[in-house]
């Protein structure tokens, strides 16, 4: 187990350059690329002194390398600056923190849908290779990937929300007064923890369509990943050996083989997490889900440059930490791997 600890340390250290590159990239995009975020954030015709003042408070009047140094220094202290508009002077970090649980809740629920649908269908397709079901599922994987996630969401809203009236189509909960006591910030979990059944039911109803949308969007990728992994595993000797021992086919495929296939799938989840976040941004906008993605898009319309920068940096940190987490998980699950 000591070697696992060492691996953890090394892996964590390896994440640092990646975070550094991403953070630098955000800086380059937002400050060095042509286009002035401040000018575009202010109504045309504003007095030059006003613009200069804002530039000064943001430190944009300093030389670039000083800006870059300040930027990194602030990030080290988790200081994401203060907002410009619609209200000036609020802490960006605090606002992001408030929006984060909604995104987390959606992402987890979406991941759950994906895991159930994608992995299940992928395993089934591999098991029944070259059957009609296999070809249909492969085609499903391609088609679902080609469907824009926000359009999928709109169609669900139309069918299940407007026509059938089964689910609400916007927000996380019917009224803020109904929201459960803040523990984790995930409404479904908090309402469950506090035994608030009305809020639980309501937040689950609100979560259903966005989670289904996001989950199905990603499921195509997982059908393919699971299928190709399963095909490789099913060709391995130990699968043949298990069959030769008379182990029932179902057990061989869904216990022995699938368990082995899941390990590489977990690592690939790391890369798919980026896709999940991108999907979440669009899903949040579709369902007026008050998460980080909607926050980012909303602040873009306000041209609130510090919030944009903060949100993008947080997304970068999320990606880096999830990829770290997944690798650690992988090392922990697979008995063969000890670094």
């Amino acid at each position, binding site marked *: 187990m000591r070697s696992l600890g060492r691996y953890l340390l090394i892996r964590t250290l390896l994440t640092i350059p990646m975070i550094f590159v991403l953070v630098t990239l*955000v800086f380059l995009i937002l400050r060095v690329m042509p286009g002035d975020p401040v000018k575009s954030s202010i109504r045309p015709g504003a007095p030059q002194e006003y613009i200069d003042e804002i530039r000064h408070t943001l430190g944009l009047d300093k030389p670039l390398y000083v800006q870059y140094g300040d930027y990194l220094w602030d990030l080290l202290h988790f200081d994401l600056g203060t907002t410009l508009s619609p209200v000036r002077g609020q802490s960006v970090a605090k606002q992001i923190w408030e929006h984060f649980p909604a995104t987390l809740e959606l992402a987890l629920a979406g991941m759950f849908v994906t895991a159930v649908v994608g992995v299940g269908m992928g395993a089934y397709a591999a098991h029944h290779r070259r059957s009609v079901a296999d070809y249909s599922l492969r085609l499903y994987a391609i088609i679902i990937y080609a469907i824009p996630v926000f*359009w999928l969401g709109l169609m669900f809203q139309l069918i299940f929300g407007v026509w059938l009236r089964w689910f609400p189509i916007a927000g996380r909960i019917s009224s803020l007064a109904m929201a459960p006591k803040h523990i984790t910030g995930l409404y479904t979990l908090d309402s469950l923890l506090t035994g608030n059944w009305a809020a639980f039911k309501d937040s689950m109803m609100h979560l259903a369509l966005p989670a289904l949308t996001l989950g199905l969007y990603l499921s195509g990728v997982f059908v393919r990943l699971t299928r190709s992994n399963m095909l490789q595993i099913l060709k391995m000797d130990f699968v043949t050996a298990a069959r030769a021992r008379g182990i029932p086919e179902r057990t061989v495929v869904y216990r022995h083989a699938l368990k082995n296939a899941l390990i590489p799938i977990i690592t690939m989840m790391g890369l798919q997490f980026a896709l999940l976040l991108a999907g979440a941004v669009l899903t949040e906008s*579709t369902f007026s889900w008050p998460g980080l993605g909607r926050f980012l898009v909303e602040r873009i319309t306000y041209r609130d440059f510090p919030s944009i920068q903060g949100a993008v940096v947080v997304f970068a940190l999320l990606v880096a930490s999830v990829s770290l987490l997944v690798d650690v998980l992988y090392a922990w699950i697979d008995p063969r791997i000890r670094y």
Partner: protein
Amino acid sequence: MTKTRKLREEPTSLMGRLLRGAYWYGAEWYWTVTGGILLVLIIAITIFAPVISPYDPITTVGGPFERPGGGQVVLLAPKDSGITAVQKGLKVAVFYNTTAAIVAEKYGLTPRPYQVDKDLFAKVRAGEAQAVLIAARDAAQALADHQDFVQVGKPFGPHFLLGTDNLGRDILSRLIWGARAVLAVAILSALFSAAVGVPLGLLSGFFGGWFDRVLSLIMDSVYSFPGLILAIAVAAVLGTGVVNIAIAISVVYIPTYFRMTRSQVLSIKEELYVEAARALGAKQREILGMYIFPNVISTLVVVFSLNVADAILTEAGLAFLGLGLQPPTPDWGFDLNKGKAYLPRGYWWPITFPGMMITLVALGFSLLGEGLGEILNPRLTEE
């Protein structure tokens, strides 16, 4: 078994080869062909947009939210009025801001629009107008309700196959013209990405060393970042316009080309014929150009096709978030953004058709790329 069994012969006719492809590659072959057909159709649409588009995509040609198949209007006059044809200057009662109101103007009739009061026939009976102009699809019911009116002439006016949007613009025309914008942005961005990513990948893979390591770290980091969010950030700074959006999207996909090219170069570099060329004294530049680049091309075709599909989806996503092309340029994603607001009222057609188009075009490129990928580079798992 005393005679040598003959191996199946390769067919030589074009049709034979096509069928042969299906036999060899199975589903992938049909995918490729379907994708190809879809793309040919889409490209034909973009080229012939001015000819096949029934209306101008950015002007109001009917009432808002005219249902699919609607647009035609019909003139109903009192039986004893003596009106036998649609004549200029005729005073007609119409509902305010409907296709009928717009068509009336266009055909030289004098419209009397009513907004609140719903009974147009009462207005005619009261002498405020000479006839009623209503949607053709409502005519039968209206005539049954008002036996003292008759239909004058045939239905006339525009025909909106897919209905109209909130501004009374023809959705079909917007779809047709929108294909141009989407394809332009997607293909342009894919070209940008390839133009940057492929050379960098070639150099990085070929020369190796610290240059390769630093570049790979950067590319891997960008690759791991959610593409859409990156594009949002770039688009937020650059602003709108076809080229700007294309650049914003291309930033996302440069690493895809870089990684693909680099790994190809690394594997090809080791192959014997490149070693042989080197031993024969070929220059680095010659090896790159003559041996490595041609090998990368076949994979590039596949990646490019898949990349255009991704770019289309990213463009649509940006447009849906309001960061795409600026109106009045017809854009599917933007139409979805606008249509979303009217969805709770049950207007399904402004959001259904643009989404279908995005899916179809992305699907066309995906199928083509997937199919070609399987055929050009069959994976062992599919043996």
